[in-house]
């Protein structure tokens, strides 16, 4: 490996070579994106492809850390490449990628290398693509230099300790950074659909009389039937309407008990939501709000029933997200997401 200065020189040379008088290359940089790959043969190539797609929307410098090579001796290979696309007006817009390939024995040199290669004064997003957090040698040093820590908990098989670790990271002091979980971000359409029940001010008081929340989701379940997605949705509703735990029981602000029920559906993909039901007692009437995924799983059907009376049902199309699209959204946000942190905190208690 050369020094970080050598890497900067290589990047400068890359841009000189790419530009011609007739067709100058426009460079743009609005963030540092550190990506830590998971283990696996195809992981580095897949990550590079994702980084390229993100660069089309949010240009920046990507620092991609490949999986550690067990037999790489003392090597720490660093090389540069560019992601280019046609931008507005047909100009070629490029972002840069620095790939760092450590061996097991040079892993400890990675954080220092990254620190030297960060573009100054721009936010640092670290996308942690490895499965766990605890016991990972890069976790602590990289968390320390990150403004935003991005990960995806969707496939987590043990939601409780995982959410507890995340909650601890989000609450870490002193740490100016924040945590973003793609599993949470991907639930936004469902949150939006559920919120739409209560856009009508006349219906809103029903939120103060919730008696039961039932959520069923796909994915590996904990003993209590909770998945990360289910726990997040339950934690979100609980924290937004002011539910609080009292022993094993969740209570409303007026002291009324709320039954929380989470279940896992085995034939759904992890992270997919099957149904969310909210029951409420309001003005001596029982109102049931049900959001349910359609058979094709491309829409959510919203039904409100009050006693025997059913209001017209509505359908909302669910957008098809992929990982790169979710990550693009995340790296355009700055600052803590207080709603997520409250939901996470409640979710960790629910599971």
């Amino acid at each position, binding site marked *: 490996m050369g020094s970080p200065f050598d890497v900067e020189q290589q990047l400068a040379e890359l841009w000189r070579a790419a530009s011609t008088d007739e067709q100058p290359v426009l460079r743009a940089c609005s963030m540092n994106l550190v990506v830590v790959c998971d283990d696996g043969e195809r992981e580095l190539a897949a990550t590079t492809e994702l980084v390229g797609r993100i660069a089309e929307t949010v240009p920046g410098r990507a620092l991609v850390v490949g999986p550690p090579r067990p037999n790489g001796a003392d090597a720490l290979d660093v090389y540069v490449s560019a992601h280019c696309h046609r931008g507005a007006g047909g100009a070629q817009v490029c972002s840069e990628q620095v790939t760092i390939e450590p061996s097991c024995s040079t892993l400890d040199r990675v954080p220092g290398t990254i620190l030297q290669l960060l573009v100054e004064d721009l936010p640092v997003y670290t996308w942690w693509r490895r499965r766990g957090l605890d016991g990972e040698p890069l976790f602590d040093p990289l968390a320390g230099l990150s403004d935003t820590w991005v990960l995806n908990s969707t496939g987590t098989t043990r939601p409780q300790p995982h959410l507890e670790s995340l909650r601890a990271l989000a609450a870490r002091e002193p740490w100016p950074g924040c945590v973003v979980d793609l599993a949470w971000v991907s639930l*936004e359409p469902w949150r939006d659909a559920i919120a739409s029940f209560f856009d009508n001010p006349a219906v809103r008081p029903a939120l103060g009389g919730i008696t039961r929340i039932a959520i069923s989701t796909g994915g590996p379940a904990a003993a209590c039937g909770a998945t990360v997605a289910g726990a997040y949705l339950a934690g979100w509703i609980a924290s*937004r309407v002011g539910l609080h735990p009292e022993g094993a029981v969740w209570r409303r602000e007026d002291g009324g008990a709320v039954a929380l029920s989470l279940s896992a559906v085995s034939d759904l993909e992890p992270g997919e939501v099957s149904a969310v039901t909210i029951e409420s007692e309001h003005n001596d009437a029982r109102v049931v709000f049900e959001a349910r995924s359609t058979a094709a799983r491309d829409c959510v059907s919203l039904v409100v029933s009050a006693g025997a009376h059913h209001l017209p049902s*509505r359908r909302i199309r669910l957008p098809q997200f992929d990982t790169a699209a979710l990550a693009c959204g995340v790296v355009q946000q700055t600052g803590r997401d207080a709603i997520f942190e409250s939901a996470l905190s409640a979710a960790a208690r629910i599971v």
Partner: protein
Amino acid sequence: MTTVESENPLRVGLRRDRGAEPCTLVIFGASGDLTERKLVPALYNLQLDRLLPSGFAVVGVARREMSDDAFITAMREGTREHSRREMSDENWSEIAGGLSYVATGNNPDDYGNLARHLDDIDRRRGTGGNRLFYLATPPSAFATIVTRLEHAGLHRPGPGGGWARIVLEKPIGHDLSSARELNHTVNQVFAESDVYRIDHYLGKETVQNLLVFRFANAIFEPLWNHKYVDHVQLTVAESIGIEGRGRYYEEAGTTRDMVQNHMFQLLCLTAMEPPVSLAADAIRDEKVKVLQALRPVVADAVGASTVRAQYAAGVIGGEKVPGYLDEPDVARDSRTETYVALSTYVDNWRWAGVPFYLRAGKRMPKRVTEIALRFRDVPHHLFDHASRPNTLALRIQPDEGITLKFDSKAPGPKPRLQPVSMEFRYGTSFGQQPPEAYERLILDAILGDSTLFIRRDEVEASWSHIDALMNVWAAGDGALPRYVSGTWGPDESDAMLRRDGRLWRRL
């Protein structure tokens, strides 16, 4: 936790954090170009972004008899052609389900039919009596429509409660007196807080960015005044001509078509003081103060501070184009301007003595809208080659962005200065396509946010200034100066700035 009664606590933090209540959009002039080219494609894109409320319905209203199916088909084709994003039948079906059409002729009872149709939609789609009336008709029809809405009781919310708002397309009036008359008619029926006067420039991302640029960046605001700014140039140039709209243009001219609305809005946003908040009236209060501070028109000074002209035949983009007087529906002795340049002052503490030069024209070499602040020269020249004043240019369209021009030392043994520019381009730094202006504006009207709409006093203050100018111009006679199509306007315009020791920016 947020108060359950006051706002939807589940909405907080969502991308669609302002939950729009279910409602019906009623478009008058539904068979017109604006509906097909702009409004419905905007609705389609809002639907794609999941920004429309559930149960949302659209009722097209026009004179022509048409079935719902024919209307839906026409709107689908319009959307397919004009949507900024590719249209898919699957996504279209979501909005098509809420589309319907009602024909209204001269019979006032037709509005009774419309009222019943809206009540029926409320029942079927749960739109709760919330109605947004969008007048995409010629302005001459505004007063009649408003009056008939009142007679049919449609100016009030539907039976289930809710709200009734009205959106008016520009132009709002032809002069101060007609603007006042129209505003009076509208305000007799709708409260001012329910009236949304559109200037689609305000829906453009880059225009909104003016507020962010000025008031979210500490380095520029200290320079944004007469101590550092020599003058300001606003340019709205179009390469197209009047595109077959001779009849309209003969009545309007560039001053009414561009200056009274778009350019004065840009001027306001450039010159206004920081608002106390981002509330609609806080911003509009500051904008109207700018209009009130415009130096009053003095008849004797108009000749030296304004230039009007018409395009002559020329070549644009390699194609020959006719002169204005040879366009269809244009009088051979027309004195309607297709180009206007004017110099004005904002007589307040911040801008004392700083000229604002505005120019707008058709058949210019290219389409460009920008605001440029030319800074004062350095107080003492150290270098042999005179330095050039710094310029900050905010490009509104196309290639939206911001450029700062400054001098730099060219490499070599001598201190040779060379102007360089630092550029920020939206298209480079933000990969995603910005929404169309109409998307933002329709959504804001649905949400009841009037920040990006023009208040009555703004309209009347700008007409007041324009009226004074036009009265002086009307007293003149003789042909207007000409400029060759494909050039940057008449020599008289350059001369106007030269007299002040300045030059128009070369764009």
